[in-house]
Structures are given as structure tokens and as C-alpha cells.
């Protein structure tokens, strides 16, 4: 029933190549890629919402929940296995989203944007005041095991890199199916005309609820991986500027293909690494101008360049 298309083959191949590269890429590069792909997972969720016409300025909420779940699992519950911690984070985020979604699915447009922002700031406020969790400083994350196996420094980084590549690639494959499924296309339909969706006999709120939960799960996975990679978590993960960065990367890549968030996140990570080194006080300014440029010249994101080139060739 599921048709395997070119995108899926390409994604699988890219995932395998990236995974194989894990054996010989230098440490610093593996680290940047791990962080970028973890971020890409979060951005996948943001894109999922954008396809439904919603922009969240508070996806940091679930990113943070995923991160703290990993940190707290190790600190307070003695759970140290990465896959278990990540799963716990995703479940925690989905549970939270299941409650918040009841409220959030009533909102659209700027109200959704603002309310998501406010909710993430509530978590920020709570964490800043929680001295048990290190307040503004956060705390360090215990090194994790992978399916019961523990690794030393070098191998640990490689293992984490592999896990991230597999999750990002696998996640993208799943989302590729979702985007083209009946449910996925229905989200686009909501973005286009919610009244018609209602008049086709469907509940827009139920559809958006599903969307919200899925996006939360992806954000938590990204947050968990980020926590493992940096070995540290703090409330900043839930601060709204963190969420703003996710929105930026989502717009940079565009929403038309699941590979776009990954390409955009990697690009973002590299440009940032160099920009911060050379011009520390103009990084945000660059982002701002790029964002305006995208909105004016490439409203469908960088991926539209790939698309139109393909069409021109064909």
C-alpha cells in the first residue's frame, strides 16, 4: 500500500551515508552535526505546524521538557539509558501536549503564536525559580548508556552521533509518509480553508490536536538529544528566543520537503559557528536580514530553489 518514492530512497541513502561517516569525521564536526540534527527534529515539528497554518513561538516548551526529562531521569530516577530517556521525554511531552492541546487547538494565527510563547515562558518561569533543578544555571546531565552499553569519551560521542542520525533520518522518513497521508494533507486543507474542512465532516480541532501532539514528540526528542550532546540543560531551552530560532530554521528550509529542515539546520549551525567567531555582535542582525530576505524573495524557503531548478531541468 505504501509507495516507496524517490524521496524515501534518497533519505534512507543520506541517513546511511551520514551514519557511515560517523567513523571518520572529526570530533568537532560530529558534535556540530549532532546538535544540528537534533535541532532539525524540533524544526520538523515546527514545520508540521506550519503546514497546518500555525506558527509556534513556544516550541521550546517541549524541547525543554525533552531535555529536562533526560537530565532528571539520570539525576533523580537512576535511568541512564539514552533510548529509554528519550522515550520518557517524548512521552512526557506528549502527555503535557495532550492537556495543553485542549486549549491550544482553539487558537489560530497570532493567538496561537502568542499563547504558545506564553506557555513556554511559564515553564521558563517555573524552572528559573526551582532551586532543586539549578534555577537559571540548570544542571549537568549524566553520561548515558546506549541499549545498556556504555562508551568512553570518543566512542560516546560517536554513539550519540549515530543515534541522532538514525532518529533524524528515521523521523524524516516517517514524516514524509505523514505529509502525504490523508491526515497530513488534511492539515494543509485546514491551513487553506478551515470552514470547508468542517463542512467535509471533519473536526479541525481534532486534526490540529493530533498535529500538536506529534510536533511535541519531535521537539522532545530533539531536546533530549541536545541535552545528551551538550551534557547540560538550563531554562534557556524554554525561553522564547530558542523557539524563535526554530521558527527561523523552519522558514529558512521551507515546508515543502522533509529534508529541508535538516539541510537548513546544518547550514544554520555552520554559519553560526563562523559568524559568532568573526562578528560576535552582528549574528542576530545577519539572521534578521536573512529572514527578511527569505520572506521577500523565497517565501517557500531555500528548498524552493532545489525545486525550481529541478523543474527547469525537466
Amino acid at each position: 500500500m505504501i509507495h516507496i518514492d524517490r524521496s524515501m530512497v534518497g533519505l534512507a541513502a543520506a541517513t546511511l551515508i551520514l551514519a557511515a561517516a560517523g567513523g571518520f569525521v572529526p570530533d568537532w564536526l560530529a558534535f556540530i552535526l549532532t546538535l544540528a540534527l537534533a535541532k532539525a527534529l524540533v524544526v520538523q515539528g515546527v514545520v508540521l505546524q506550519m503546514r497546518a497554518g500555525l506558527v509556534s513561538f513556544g516550541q521550546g516548551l517541549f524541547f525543554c521538557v525533552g531535555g529536562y526529562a533526560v537530565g532528571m531521569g539520570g539525576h533523580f530516577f537512576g535511568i541512564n539509558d539514552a533510548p529509554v530517556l528519550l522515550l520518557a521525554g517524548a512521552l512526557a511531552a506528549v502527555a503535557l501536549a495532550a492537556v495543553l492541546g485542549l486549549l491550544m487547538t482553539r487558537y489560530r494565527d497570532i493567538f496561537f503564536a502568542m499563547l504558545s510563547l506564553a506557555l513556554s515562558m511559564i515553564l521558563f518561569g517555573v524552572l528559573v525559580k526551582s532551586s532543586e533543578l539549578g534555577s537559571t544555571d540548570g544542571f549537568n546531565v549524566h553520561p548515558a548508556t546506549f541499549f545498556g552499553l556504555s562508551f568512553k569519551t570518543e566512542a560516546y560521542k560517536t554513539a550519540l552521533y549515530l543515534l541522532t542520525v538514525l532518529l533524524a533520518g528515521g523521523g524524516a522518513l516517517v514524516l514524509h509518509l505523514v505529509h502525504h497521508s490523508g491526515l497530513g494533507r488534511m492539515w494543509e486543507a485546514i491551513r487553506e480553508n478551515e470552514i470547508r474542512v468542517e463542512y467535509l465532516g471533519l473536526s479541525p480541532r481534532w486534526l490540529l490536536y493530533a498535529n500538536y501532539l506529534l510536533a511535541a514528540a519531535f521537539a522532545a526528542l530533539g531536546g533530549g538529544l541536545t541535552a545528551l550532546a551538550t551534557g547540560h540543560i538550563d531554562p534557556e531551552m524554554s525561553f522564547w528566543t530558542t523557539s524563535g530560532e526554530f521558527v527561523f530554521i523552519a522558514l529558512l528550509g521551507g515546508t515543502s520537503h522533509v529534508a529541508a529542515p535538516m539541510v537548513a539546520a546544518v547550514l544554520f549551525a555552520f554559519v553560526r559557528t563562523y559568524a559568532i567567531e568573526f562578528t560576535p555582535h552582528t549574528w542576530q542582525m545577519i539572521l534578521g536580514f536573512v529572514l527578511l530576505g527569505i520572506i521577500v524573495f523565497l517565501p517557500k524557503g531555500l528548498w524552493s530553489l532545489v525545486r525550481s531548478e529541478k523543474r527547469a531541468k525537466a
Partner: protein
Amino acid sequence: MTTFYAIFIDGMIYASWLFLVAAGLTVIYGVMRILNMAHGSFYAIGAYCAASMVGWYFSDFDGNPYLSYLLLIGCALVAGLVVGVVIEQGLLRFMYKRNELLMIIITYALLLILEDTTKLAFGVDPYFTYQPYALLGRSDIGGLAFANYDLLLVAVSAIIGLGCWLVLNRTHVGKVLRAVIHDREIAVAMGVNVRLMFAGTFIVGTTLGALAGALTAPSISVSPGIGVEVIVLAFAVVVVGGLGSIEGAIVGALLVGMTRSLAVHLAPQIELFVIYGVMSLVLAVRPQGLFGRTLARKI
């Protein structure tokens, strides 16, 4: 009893500050339907201009200290005007046709640009300009000492609120603005120069933002990041009150200010939480905010 006084007066002071910060945001949204993420940056710019100018006035210039208040307000007006004109004419007027959601993202880009511009212009070290704050001394109310500067802010805030209300409800310009707010298409059909109204509104909005920053500068350390902190608070206030409504912003500021003051005095660990808690609660009960209107789409 003392606690009650303290809670009430602190609440009033905080509410006035919140209203100052939120007024420009709600005015711009009300007329232009732009939820301006860069509003906090105007606040920051106003604060930096005022802090640096007043700092220079006191250190290098031996004038009458009371003139520093004029300088404070003058800085805000000039900064707000310049920034407002540049941004409206240079960027926003080309973007008006875009939808509200995209406008948020555009103003977010603006925020990113302005944040770094401020850092480049004023550096990253904090500015302290306590003189105008200290100059007015303190008053004793019910056995508690309050800074007169803070109490003065309550009055200033009330004047600005009243001024906005009067302009909107008692002047010809206000009548035209209300027509634009009520139905933009009809206003255009009636021959209203919407572009002019937009430009004017935006400049007034940025100036209000800069003024809020300038008036706050003497009581804080002006450093990078103040704009970002402020914008989220301002959002909370206008969303509680109902986006675009001046009355809403007043009531929202009072509600948020009083609640926070209660929390600060009785349960300080939930201080930050409580602001957004109020906001979520109001929205859960009244999605459009206390004074917001809902419009069902006509089909």
C-alpha cells in the same frame, strides 16, 4: 494591613509600568493589525538613549538636575520618532499586504536586527542612571517608603492612558482611526488616507515604546536583553485585555500588575509563573481577551 498597602501600591506601580510598556503595542495592533515583536526593542532603544544622554548630562555637564527629566523625555521622543519613521518608511510600508502571521515574523526579523544594532551603538556594558530616580526622594505611605519617582510614573501612565483615550474618542483623528479599526475597507471607501494613518500610528507606537524605556531607565540597569524581557510581558498584558484595545490594556495591566504584586509579597517563588498563569486563565475562559471582539467569518 501594611502588607495590604504594600501589595496595593506595588501593584499600582507595576501596573502603571506594564501599561506604559504595552500602550504602544496595543495602539499599533489596534489600528494596523500588526503584533509588533520589535516593540521591546523600541523600549530598549528609548532606555539606552535616555541612559546615555542623562548619564552624560550628569557627569560632563553641570546643569540644573531637574532639567534631566526634560532630557529623558526629549530623548524618548526623538528616538521614537527617528526609529519609527525609518522603519515604517524603509520597511513596513512595503509589507502591509501580508497576513498577520507573516507580520509577526517580519517584526521578529526586525527585533533581531534592532537587538544587534543597539549592541553596536551602545556596547554591551550596562548603563546606570540613578540620578533622576534618586533626586525625587521617598515618601512614607502607611509606614512604608516608596520612591517618589515610581509614584510619579503612576501619574504619567494615567496621563498617557487618558491621552490615548481622549485622542481616540474625542477628536476628529480619533474618529477616523476608529473607522479604520472597525472596518478598513469601508474606511478606504470613505476616502480615509489609510497609509497616512498607518504611518502616524506606527510612529506614535514606537514613540510610546521608547518613552516607556526612557522613563524606566533611571530605575534599572540598562543592559542587552531588556527589550526581549519586556516584549513578553507586554504581550501578556495586551492579550489579557484584548488585542488592540486601550481599555483592555489598562485593565490587563492592572490585573497582571496586582496579581504579580500579590505573588511577590505572598509567594515569591511563583512570581514569574503567575503573570502567564493569569494570561492563560483569562484566555481559557475568554479566548479573545477581556475587551477583544470576535468576528465569525461570513460565508
